[in-house]
């Protein structure tokens, strides 16, 4: 690993890294020229498939495979939706790419669109990223002026328009079909799948939805090849035929109780502890760690004793977490109350549930109210069972909801109760010494923070 050379962040420390001349001086727009000059769309799809690149947006679906699901012989049009809604708490790697190297993102979009025969790309950007909006728009304008976008890009007979589309502060627009509904001008209610977007996506046409970082990897795969990409990461498990492995570089975010919060590029598979100690500069204030979110709050919790878990696509799952998610680590030091942590998490999901599925809408908002009640010293041991029941019964996994937001809401509850149950029981007993064994129904203390949607 000593030899690791960052590529996704290679430009970001140069002055004016966001401008076209700087990007081109660093070798930018060579990959798209090569693709347009020498490769068929199918060859690009096959190459990306062979690289093992998996989606960086959270689900980890193999990118080339997703592209290959688009129907052949379809009259079109085909669309590309770029998911820049980045709203998972703890996550900011897409922001860094868009603000500091927007042309790298655009080159990835160009290659992705060529491979998938899309001639229109919508870049769905969360509203709260004004700098990214300006930088990307400026970069897109530079490309039009140079003939890199529009009709006959690079004089090679390929046409592509990229349009920015701004969101309106709703986490659910990051779910790919919620994004599509929102793009179409409707409430961002995720769709039941199938049909998957590749068959019926934006405007009911075949559509690929990809994350910013996924697409930013593509030019490097073209330039440096499959072997280079596969030389990094954790190979697929030979005993598990369904494990596609975790290859390539990854942008890890680290924040919370850490000395040096930031975004660090490393091969997939670094451990949580390495990230904390070697890159984040250790837990802040000389304190001990208590737990960490492994990849955005939806993924649950690693207790400190589990920090040697490898942060590849398979690692967090082995420690009972939901998955790698966005590889955004949030560190909690020894002083954090798990009750406070879980209330914060439940409040987020109650606010962001789109309200379409009853188990998610009710489950997220009741779990917030229960946690609030516990926090206020009115908790009962029975509440912990109630939380367990809620977290076991909402989500795609138990099969009760349309999208994965509910699984993401459930996981922090499940992990916190499993890994820190004693602390919850102790808190309830200490703060409610006369009522903690009460089994009668009680009223919620206050209706707080009902969903905005």
């Amino acid at each position, binding site marked *: 690993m000593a030899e690791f050379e960052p590529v996704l962040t290679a430009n970001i420390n140069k002055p004016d890294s966001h401008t076209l001349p700087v990007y081109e001086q660093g070798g930018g727009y060579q990959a798209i020229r090569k693709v347009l000059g020498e490769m068929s769309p199918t060859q690009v799809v096959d190459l990306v498939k062979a690289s093992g690149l998996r989606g960086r947006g959270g689900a980890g679906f193999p990118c080339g495979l997703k592209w290959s699901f688009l129907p052949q012989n379809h009259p079109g*049009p085909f669309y590309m939706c770029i998911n820049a809604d*980045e*709203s*998972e*708490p*703890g*996550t*900011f790697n*897409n*922001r860094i790419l868009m603000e500091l190297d927007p042309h790298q993102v655009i080159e990835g979009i160009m290659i992705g669109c060529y491979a998938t025969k899309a001639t229109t790309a919508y870049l769905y950007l*969360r*509203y*709260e*990223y*004004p*700098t990214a909006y300006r930088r990307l728009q400026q970069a897109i304008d530079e490309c039009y002026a140079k003939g890199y976008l529009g009709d006959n890009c690079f004089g090679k007979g390929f046409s592509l*328009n990229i*349009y920015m*589309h*701004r*969101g*309106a*502060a*709703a*986490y659910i627009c990051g779910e790919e079909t919620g994004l599509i509904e*929102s*793009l*179409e*001008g*409707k*409430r*961002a209610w995720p769709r039941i799948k199938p049909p998957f977007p590749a068959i019926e996506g934006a*405007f009911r046409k075949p559509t690929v939805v990809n994350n910013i970082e996924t697409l930013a990897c593509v030019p490097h795969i073209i330039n440096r090849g499959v072997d280079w990409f596969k030389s990094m990461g954790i190979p697929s498990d030979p005993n598990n035929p369904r494990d596609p492995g975790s290859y390539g570089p990854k942008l890890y*975010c680290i*924040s*919370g*109780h850490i000395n040096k*919060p*930031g*975004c660090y590029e490393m091969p997939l598979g670094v451990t949580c502890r390495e990230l904390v100690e070697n890159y984040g500069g250790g837990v802040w204030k000389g304190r001990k760690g208590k737990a960490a*979110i492994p990849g955005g*709050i939806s993924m649950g919790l690693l207790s400190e004793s589990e920090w040697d878990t490898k942060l590849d696509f398979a690692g967090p799952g082995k420690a009972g977490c939901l998955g790698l998610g966005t590889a*955004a680590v*949030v560190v*909690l030091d020894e002083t*954090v109350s798990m009750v*406070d*942590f879980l209330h*914060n*998490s439940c*409040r*987020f999901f109650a*606010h*962001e549930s*789109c309200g379409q599925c009853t188990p998610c809408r009710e489950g997220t908002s009741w779990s917030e109210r229960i946690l609030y009640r516990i926090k206020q010293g009115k908790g009962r041991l029975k509440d912990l069972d109630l939380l367990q029941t809620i977290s076991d019964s909402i989500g795609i996994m138990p099969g009760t909801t349309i999208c994965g937001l509910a699984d993401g809401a459930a996981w922090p509850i499940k992990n916190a109760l499993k890994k820190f149950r004693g602390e919850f029981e102790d808190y309830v007993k200490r703060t409610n010494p006369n009522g903690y064994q009460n089994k009668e129904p009680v009223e919620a203390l206050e209706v707080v923070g009902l969903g*905005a*949607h």
Partner: protein
Amino acid sequence: MTTAAPTSSPVLTPEMVAEIQALFPRYPTRQAITLPALHIVNSQLRHVPMEAIPEIAKLLELAPAQIYDTLSFYGFFKSEQGGFVRAWVCRSISCALRGGDEVFQKMCHTLGVKPGGTTPDGKITLEFGECLGLCDFAPAVLANEQVYKNVDLDKVDEICAQLKSQAEKGG
């Protein structure tokens, strides 16, 4: 929701209408311009008045209820007048771990508003936000296009002063 009586002067200015119409070629449906149109109105007026809804609906060839349905889903769009400066204080986990909730509380006190409220002079609206994607700078505040990083209680007075001077510029 009260039905807007036909009024003499439209809410959308000719510039707003032109800006909305300029987006038509980008999308295969008119409905897709709903969010962009709401943003155009909101950025000019700092809210989307009910009277604007039938006007947008007409431009996009939709029923007003379709526009309202979308608008009301996104808590971002408000029908009541907001301040020229709109500030969000992050309340999600990375910021909360570093004192975000306390910062929000102090900002409410300093500006004299309740969460979500607008200052009595109508110039600054203060809201909580969920993760602003600035967790490396937690606690973070976003106000119009300005980012305030690593905010602590000592910085609140200065930030509030800056918000006020920004608000003066907006009239």
